[in-house]
C-alpha cells in the first residue's frame, strides 16, 4: 500500500470548488494555514524546532560535529540535509530506503539553505584543509497533511536560527550561536484548474495539476525553485507567484524571528 489512490469524486469536487475560488477547508486560494513553531523541541540537539503548518507537523534537529573539509573546499564547513518521511506520519509512507519524495524534500530544502548562503560555511572552518564543523540538518515529518516542503524548510530554518555551536564539548573554545546570515523560506503553490492555490493540503496535492515551490530570502532574492507533478505554469503566472512567495515568506520569517531563544 505505498500509494494512496485519491477518490475520483473528491478530486472532481476539489477542482469544481477551485473554479469558483473556494477550497475544501474554506480557505481562499491565497490563504496560508496557521503556522506555529516550538523552538528547542529536542533537548539533545544543538538546535531544534517543531514546525506546524495547519495539521502538518515537522521536527528538525541540528547536530554539529568536527570533521574533515572536502578537498575542493578546504576553507568551508560541511552542511548535509536529510529528510525522513516516517511511516507514522502518513499511511502512504513505508519503512525502508528513502522514498523519492523524501529525497526531493531534502534536496529542495538543502538547495534553498545552500543557495541563500544562510549558513556561512566559511565560519564553520576550524583549520583550513584539516578540520571543520559538519552541520547535520535532520528533518522528520511526523504528520503529513500536505505541503511538506514548506513545513520542512520552516522547521529546518527555525532550528538553525536557534542553534548553538557546541565548541566546549569538543574542546574548541566557548559555545557560540550559529548566526544565520539569511532566513530563506519556501512557498509552495499548486494548480487546480485555472486557479492556483498556496499551501496545498494533502487532498489538494492529490488533485493538483502542477506544483511550484519558490524559495525567497528577506533581502528580495528568489534563491531556489522546484517544479513538481505533471502540469505547467505560464511565465506570467510564475512572476505573480514569485511576488506572492515573498509575501508568504515574510510571514514565515516573522514566525521564526518571533519567540525567544530557549
Amino acid at each position: 500500500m505505498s500509494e494512496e489512490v485519491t477518490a475520483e469524486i473528491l478530486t472532481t469536487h476539489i477542482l469544481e470548488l477551485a473554479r469558483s475560488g473556494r477550497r475544501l477547508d474554506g480557505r481562499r486560494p491565497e490563504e496560508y494555514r496557521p503556522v506555529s513553531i516550538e523552538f528547542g523541541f529536542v533537548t539533545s540537539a544543538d538546535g531544534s524546532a517543531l514546525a506546524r503548518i495547519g495539521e502538518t507537523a515537522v521536527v528538525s534537529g541540528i547536530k554539529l560535529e568536527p570533521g574533515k573539509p572536502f578537498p575542493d573546499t578546504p576553507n568551508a564547513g560541511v552542511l548535509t540535509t536529510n529528510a525522513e518521511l516516517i511511516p507514522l506520519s502518513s499511511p502512504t509512507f513505508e519503512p525502508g530506503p528513502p522514498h523519492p519524495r523524501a529525497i526531493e524534500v531534502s534536496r529542495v530544502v538543502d538547495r534553498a539553505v545552500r543557495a541563500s548562503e544562510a549558513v556561512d560555511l566559511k565560519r564553520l572552518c576550524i583549520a583550513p584543509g584539516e578540520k571543520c564543523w559538519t552541520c547535520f540538518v535532520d528533518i522528520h515529518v511526523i504528520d503529513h497533511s500536505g505541503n511538506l516542503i514548506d513545513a520542512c524548510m520552516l522547521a529546518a530554518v527555525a532550528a538553525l536560527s536557534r542553534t548553538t555551536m557546541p565548541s566546549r564539548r569538543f574542546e574548541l573554545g566557548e559555545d557560540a550561536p550559529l548566526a544565520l546570515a539569511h532566513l530563506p523560506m519556501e512557498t509552495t503553490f499548486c494548480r487546480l484548474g485555472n486557479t492556483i492555490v498556496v499551501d496545498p493540503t494533502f487532498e489538494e496535492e492529490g488533485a493538483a495539476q502542477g506544483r511550484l515551490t519558490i524559495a525567497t530570502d528577506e533581502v528580495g532574492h528568489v534563491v531556489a525553485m522546484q517544479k513538481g507533478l505533471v502540469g505547467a505554469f505560464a511565465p506570467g503566472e510564475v512572476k505573480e507567484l514569485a511576488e506572492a512567495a515573498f509575501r508568504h515568506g515574510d510571514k514565515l520569517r516573522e514566525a521564526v524571528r518571533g519567540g525567544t531563544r530557549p
Partner: protein
Amino acid sequence: MGNGHRSRHRGQGREGAPSHSSRSDSARTLVLPGEELPSRGLGPGPGTYRVNGRIYASVLGLLQTQPPSVRVAPLAGRYIPRARDTVIGIVTDVQGTFWLLDIGAPRWAPLHMTGTPWKIDFGETQQYLRVGDAVVVAVEQIENTGRIGVTMIGDGLGKLEGGTLVSVSPAKIPRIIGKGGSMIQMIQKSTGCTLVVGQNGRIWLDGPDDGIVEVRSAIRLIEEEGHRRGLTERVQAFLDHGSGAPRGPKGPPPTAPWAATAEAPEPDPAEGPESEYDFPEKDVN
C-alpha cells in the same frame, strides 16, 4: 502519561481485581491496553482479548459493558473491518475478475465481479469500475487468512457518482451517526445534503455547495468535540448559526479525550449521562 490521568478517575479501586463501572453506573472509564477488565461472566468483545479466562483491553479506549460481551471503543486508530459493516471503498486496482478496494483497513479488500449487481464477462471489469472510483460495499466476512470479503449486492450498496468524500477517524463514526441516527438526520435536515456514512470513517455527501461546506465543518466539530457532553445541542447550534459562510478553524482547541473524564462534567439535564457513549452498532442503510 497514562498514570496521571488514570488516577483522576472517579472512585474505582485500582488494586487487585478492577471494579470498573459499567454503563449503567454512568461513568466513562478509560482503559489502557493490557488492563484487566471486569468480565462478570461476559465474553470478550471488540477491542479486548482473553487469556486464562481473564479479559484484557487490547486498545486505548472507553470501556463498555454490553451483554453478552465487554468491549473497548478505541479513541483512535485505523479501521478494523467487521462482518456486516457498510464501508466506502476506493478502487485501487482492476484485475480480470475482481477489483481491489482500499477501505481504510490494514489490507485491501477484493471485490469479485460476482459480488456486484452487474453481469460481467471475464476481462470487462475495467468497463464497470476504474481506479479512483468510490463504491459503497458491505463486509461479508473476514477469512482466517485475513482476506476481507466484500459485496456490492444489497440495499444502498453500489457505485458513488458525484458528491464528495470526507474522511474521519473510524472511532468517531458512532458520534456522527448519533443515537438511532439522530445526528445524521439533523445534519441532513439542516443542510439539505445527503450523507452516506461508512463504518470505515469515510463519509460521502452530496448537495448544494454551501451545504457541503457546512457539513464538512459540522463533521470537524463532531470529530474534535465528540467526546464532550451536549454534542447534539452544540452541533445544532452550529448549524443554525450563520450558514454557508466560509469558516476557518473555530471553536475551542481540540481537547484530549480524557480531559472530559478527568474533570467533573458540567451538569446537563437535557441529556442522559451516558447517551453520548451509546454506540449504535448499525445505523447506516
